[in-house]
């Protein structure tokens, strides 16, 4: 298995980084997060069409760029760094991964090109964002009609296409419905979120007609979960690195007691510890992406990455505020934006505790 990044991959990272530096400065993040839809349509279009990010990991036969989890991770890492507000994670990562792993060939051909082009925004409706074991407990399909409630659906308020994992008599299945302005029996209720850069809605279905697009097995459900977690871990490690870097800069320019506070060992040692944790979590995250692409490596690589990044990102955010002192707790200072994203990522797709338990279970199976 490859260990480093290729020249092309470095170049790709540079392109995404420059684009987001330009299009997603914190002034834009603050502006878009305050809107109801939560993203800038023009930026999303440029990101999808010109930079081609929306279909990074989607195979070329379905209109994507045909790269893998590594390249998707590179993009997600930069989005986490720059707190990009838009449907990249909900549509390109979550919905596309569900289709790639569970849809039939004809539905992949039908639904993925729109997602890859960014023209059709999709949301993945799961009845749990905590553990795969709970999936199918609240959403059921009977005679082609979907009923039930998903309490937390990322970006449902802007999605044109809903991809749903629900249970029927024959087990778990993947379903889809095109959303129209007034779909009878469906309500989408935007919720107030702790992290305003990630919009969440509650979605209720009462006997809504859906098309079945594929079967979801225990194995494919866990594979979908792993894929999403690995992309999320990249987003998190990008955010954690950004926090460490800005915090270091702050400690170099902030003077107290006649010297930069970054010269105090009490602060330096905490930054050194944080760097160590970030380097380890980052290596585990990059490794997890390579495991997905090569179908090799430890079966628990994705959970290991999510467990490490969950702890590391929130620690970085706490330290970033603490080392800034009072200013760090203000609304005006940007650190709070990453702190909230870190908290939201920490619990999204399974907490660190959940993933550690999953790791041990997978190790026991493997032993």
């Amino acid at each position, binding site marked *: 298995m490859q*260990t480093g990044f290729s020249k092309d991959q470095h170049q790709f990272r540079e392109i995404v980084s420059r684009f987001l530096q330009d299009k997603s400065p914190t002034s834009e993040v603050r502006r878009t997060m305050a809107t109801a839809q939560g993203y800038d349509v023009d930026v999303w279009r440029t990101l999808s069409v010109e930079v081609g990010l929306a279909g990074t990991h989607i195979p070329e036969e379905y209109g994507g760029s045909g790269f893998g989890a590594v390249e998707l991770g590179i993009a997600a890492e930069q989005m986490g760094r720059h707190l990009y507000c838009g449907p990249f994670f909900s549509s390109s990562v979550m919905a596309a991964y569900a289709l790639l792993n569970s849809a039939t060939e004809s539905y992949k051909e039908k639904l993925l090109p729109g997602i890859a082009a960014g023209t059709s925004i999709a949301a993945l409706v799961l009845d749990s964002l905590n553990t795969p074991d709970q999936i199918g407990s609240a959403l059921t399909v009977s005679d082609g009609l979907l009923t039930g409630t998903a309490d937390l659906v990322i970006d449902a308020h802007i999605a044109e296409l809903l991809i749903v994992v629900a249970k029927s008599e024959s087990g778990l299945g993947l379903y889809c419905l095109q959303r129209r302005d007034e779909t009878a029996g469906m309500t989408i209720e935007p919720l107030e979120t702790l992290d305003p850069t990630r919009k969440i809605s509650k979605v209720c279905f009462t006997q809504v007609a859906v098309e079945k697009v594929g079967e979801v097995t225990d194995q494919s459900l866990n594979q979908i979960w792993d894929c999403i977690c690995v992309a999320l871990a990249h987003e998190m490690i990008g955010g954690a690195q950004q926090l460490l870097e800005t915090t270091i800069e702050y400690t170099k320019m902030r003077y107290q007691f006649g010297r930069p506070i970054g010269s105090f*060992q009490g602060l330096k040692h905490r930054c*050194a510890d944080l760097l160590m944790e970030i380097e*380890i979590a980052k290596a585990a995250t990059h490794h997890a992406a390579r495991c997905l692409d090569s179908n090799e490596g430890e079966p628990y690589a994705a959970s290991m990455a999510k467990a490490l990044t969950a702890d590391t990102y929130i620690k970085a955010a706490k330290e970033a505020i603490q080392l800034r002192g009072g200013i760090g707790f203000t609304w005006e200072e940007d650190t709070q934006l990453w702190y909230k994203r870190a908290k939201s990522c920490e619990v999204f797709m399974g907490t660190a505790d959940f993933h*550690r338990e999953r790791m*041990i279970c997978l190790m026991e199976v493997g032993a």
Partner: protein
Amino acid sequence: MSAKATSPQTDQAIRSELSQWLDDNWSADRSLLEWRNILVDGGWAATGWPTAYFGRDYNREQTALVYAIFREKGAVGAASIGPRRLASETILAMGNDDQKRRYLRPILTGEHNWCQLFSEPGSGSDLAGLSTKAVFIDGQWIVNGQKVWNTSAHHADYGILVARTHWELPKHQGISYFLIDMRQPGVEVRPLKQMNGHASFNEVFMTDAVVAAEDLVGEEGNGWAVAKTTLSYERRGGAPTLPAASAADNPRVGRVYSEYQKELAIANEPYSWYPQRQGRVDLVMSRARETGAIANPVVRQEIAKLFCMSKGAVLASQAAESKRKSGSTEIVPAGSIGKLAASVIARQAAHVHTMISGADAMLSGPDSAAAGMIAEVLISVPAISIAGGTDEIQRNIISERVLAMPKEQRSDTGPFRDIKRNS
């Protein structure tokens, strides 16, 4: 790859030359010293060294190939284990021709054992604050002072020594670097028993010990630069000068083997507890299963945290290595980060072993858990965050050299005699 391409000798040429040479010369029936002399004369004892000094100027990959061929043939290599490598690499880099001629060969043949005389009771992390005194009287250096943490000093013939020769200069500028004969009346070596019962180190007392004028390495007062060469080699772990494990991997019958096994046993003895101070992560799962602790959800969480750290640290060092190979200019803090991670991992492993063992962790000795290894873990782990540079020093290095944070204000500038120090 590129190094191989520019090298004058292909792998194939090395393989055929060395195989032929071993077929002609290797015999397990010689004495170890006789064999090592043949080895040195043949130029195969330290192929990474310069041609002028017993070597062949091979690069890392070529030297690794040489080790592999020795291993295949089951041939014993030059002496390599312990502090002797620190001495040979320093002499090679900073010594004069006379010193190289006198000292390098007996290091390779194993005739001379060496030790490192750096740390002092009064200067641990602050090595440059050392106060062992060397004075030049009647054409020779007279040394007085005490050293500590000297691995293998009890059977060393020579030592690499740093001592202060100027007290009016700033601390780094008054240090000189010497090669000292350990077998003399002015040098007394006492074993230092550690909290885990082993005595891997010694204290060395020097009372009017004598160093010949020609055993000063580099210029007088330039010892700190020489010491840094030794330290950087120590931190890198260095490329061993010979295939250390060749015959140990696969012991066979013959005089060379038995003498080599004896040499290895003596040289390795101080390190027998080193795996335990790293926490023995390898024992965790089997211990958790055999005790039933694997069913405890709290234990499972702690085990998973441990594996995340230990596995992640391996991946991080691989990532740093591939970045280094790709010629990245980015500062890769692999050494200090790896060392800091090793401490976290060892402490977490000790914590997990404690949870798994429960009250059985009150016992020690061969009848206790895992033939005493768990007890040894629990009382050896505190060493990992101290030896080879404390965690606090590693954090200074990471924050100042990698994160480029400002240095702490110093209070040890100016003439050394004016600096406050331990009495």
